């Protein structure tokens, strides 16, 4: 896809999920936690599974880790089917949603556990544990019980414990969701740094779209057991393929439109206001199709004079860094424009003013449905 920027990384699949379904229960209580999911995760990339609670993110991680088995489909690790491998034979480690630290062991013992189970020599374990403690800046607390450290520290220990055996792939199940805002921001940067330093493939699960956008090389957006779209953060944000993706990630304006002509993934569409614009569009649309286009609030510009869309300002909401203008379009829909606040203060537009909204070519995207 267009905005997919993954520089200097070898394009080899670390994990390949092929047509995987997972059904829990039967009859009345039947739940398809995963419904024919296919996705390839490249080596050394920071890959994020993004979706609302209950969409099957944890289930997919558990299948990769080996705690559960797919009802159908295959999971390949570096091209080999890992179905026959029990969890303790998979070179994959997990940072659990609740950390799952061993309460009867110290911080250092927790971190060394994996290496110990692998039967590494004592000296090597000690050296590695020391290195891990340093990596997550927990040297001082090595001898503490895990019940005697804070949530953020537990998070670091869980991370160090999973990284210590140098897995090929690290699975992280909403590792930051239990942390408060400031700590979460810190850990986001920390995680990014760790991924960069270790070069391990990270599969990161979150329901926080901002977290996904800031941290990932690529994102898979999930809903109800299916992957709707896979792409780089810009790609997902600027070119959402489906209404759910557009809605779930960021604020969006939806507009009805008609396709006039299409060629090479670009289309000329006519908005309800009669204005024509260029917009990228997925395959499978013929001229005359009724479609929905999405426009991000910050991709539109507020004008004093008549423009692509016209309406009346209903509400002006000040957010510090930017201001949101809620405009009632003449065709009867609402439309939000976001503008960065200039140093000079007042944007000079207030409720009740007539305004035009400029939507440039390429600022809109045609949705699949």
């Amino acid at each position, binding site marked *: 896809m267009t905005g997919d920027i993954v520089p200097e990384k070898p394009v080899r699949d670390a994990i390949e999920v092929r047509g995987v379904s997972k059904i829990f229960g039967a009859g009345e209580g039947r739940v398809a936690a995963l419904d024919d999911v296919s996705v390839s995760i490249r080596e050394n990339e920071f890959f994020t599974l993004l979706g609302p609670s209950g969409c099957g993110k944890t289930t997919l991680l558990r299948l990769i880790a080996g705690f559960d088995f797919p009802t159908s489909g295959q999971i390949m690790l570096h091209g080999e089917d890992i179905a026959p491998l029990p969890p303790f034979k998979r070179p*994959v480690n997990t940072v659990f949603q609740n950390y799952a630290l061993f309460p009867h062991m110290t911080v250092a013992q927790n971190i060394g556990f994996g290496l110990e*189970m692998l039967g590494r020599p004592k000296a090597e374990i000690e050296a590695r544990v020391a290195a891990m403690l340093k990596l997550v800046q927990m040297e001082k607390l090595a001898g503490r019980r895990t019940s005697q450290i804070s949530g953020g520290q537990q998070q670091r220990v869980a991370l160090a414990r999973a990284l210590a055996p140098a897995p090929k792939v690290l699975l992280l199940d909403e590792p930051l969701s239990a942390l408060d805002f400031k700590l979460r921001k810190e850990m986001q940067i920390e995680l990014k740094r760790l991924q960069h330093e270790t070069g391990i493939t990270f599969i990161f699960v979150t329901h926080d779209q901002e977290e996904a956008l800031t941290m990932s090389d690529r994102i898979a957006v999930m809903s109800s057991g299916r992957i709707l779209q896979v792409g780089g953060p810009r790609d997902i944000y600027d070119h959402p393929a489906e209404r759910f993706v557009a809605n779930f990630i960021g604020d969006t304006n939806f507009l009805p439109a008609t396709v006039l002509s299409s060629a090479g993934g670009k289309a000329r569409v006519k908005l309800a206001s009669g204005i024509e614009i260029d917009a990228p569009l997925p395959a499978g649309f013929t001229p005359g199709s009724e479609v929905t286009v999405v426009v991000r609030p910050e991709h539109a510009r507020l004008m004093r004079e008549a423009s692509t869309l016209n309406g009346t300002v209903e509400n002006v909401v000040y957010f510090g860094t930017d201001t949101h203008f809620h405009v009632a379009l003449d065709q009867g829909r609402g439309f939000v424009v976001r503008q960065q606040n200039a140093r000079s203060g007042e944007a000079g537009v207030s409720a009740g003013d007539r305004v035009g909204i400029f939507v440039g070519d390429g600022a809109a995207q045609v949705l699949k449905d």
Partner: protein
Amino acid sequence: MASARDFAESAERQDVRRRWALLSPALVIIFFAAVGPLFIMLVYSFLQKGDYGGVRWAFSTDGWFSVFFQRDIFDDTLSFADAHISILWRSVRLSLMTTLFTFLLGFPTAYFIATRPEKSRDIWLFLITIPFWTNLLIRTFAMQEVIRNEGVINTALLWLGIVDQPIQIMYTDKAILFGMLYVYLPLMVLPLYASLEKLDFRLVEAAYDLYATRFQVLRRVIMPLVKPGIIAGSILVFIPSLGAYVTPRVLGGGKNLMLGNLIELQFGQGRNWPLGAALSMTLLALVMVALLIYARQAQSRSLRHG
């Protein structure tokens, strides 16, 4: 101001009085059921034996003396009371073995129950407790029906042709072990279950994830975390095993006595109440020592982990 203080003090006094009043049922029970009888036993162990049972109210250490020593009837030489000591040893040995075997059987059982769906666990627990509904004596006789030469086990083994002679289990230590295993198994399963049920199985997954094999998960994660249950179960099984009376009596025949039978003998046919009392106190001391060793260990361990 003084009145306020008076008021507070009197309220406190009242509070203390109320506390004692509320405690009184427990105190009565403790006194009449535990401390009182023990005290009587202690006193009896230092009295002379009566000719037809009972005691004569005169101080004597004969009872305690004969717990460990015996005087030859003819030449008055002193020697260790071999019979008592071998019974003591058998009691300790059989009780330790009972504890070990109930654990080996009870742990998988408790694990099985704890990993069932929540709804069916109650049914399994209920099944475990069913034997408690029947009198111990009757259960022991039922056990006899299973292990005697013409019993279920031997009949089956003979029929299958695995043996051509019935295996003699009745009236051996094995029979006692069998019986105690059966009787005390629920006492091991229930505390183990209580611990296992609280176990966070996500920790088990975490251990699998970190390359621990099934056995390593058991030894390094599950066992340490359910240790309180293991200890509680072991104490609950070991202590009553040590004083078991009905089981060795019925299944061990007359020869294979345990401490409980020896004590009973002194109060019955032996007509030596002081010795019986002294033996009881010895049993009590054994149990106390076992508990003390445990407490000491638990304490030093918690100190070390700080």
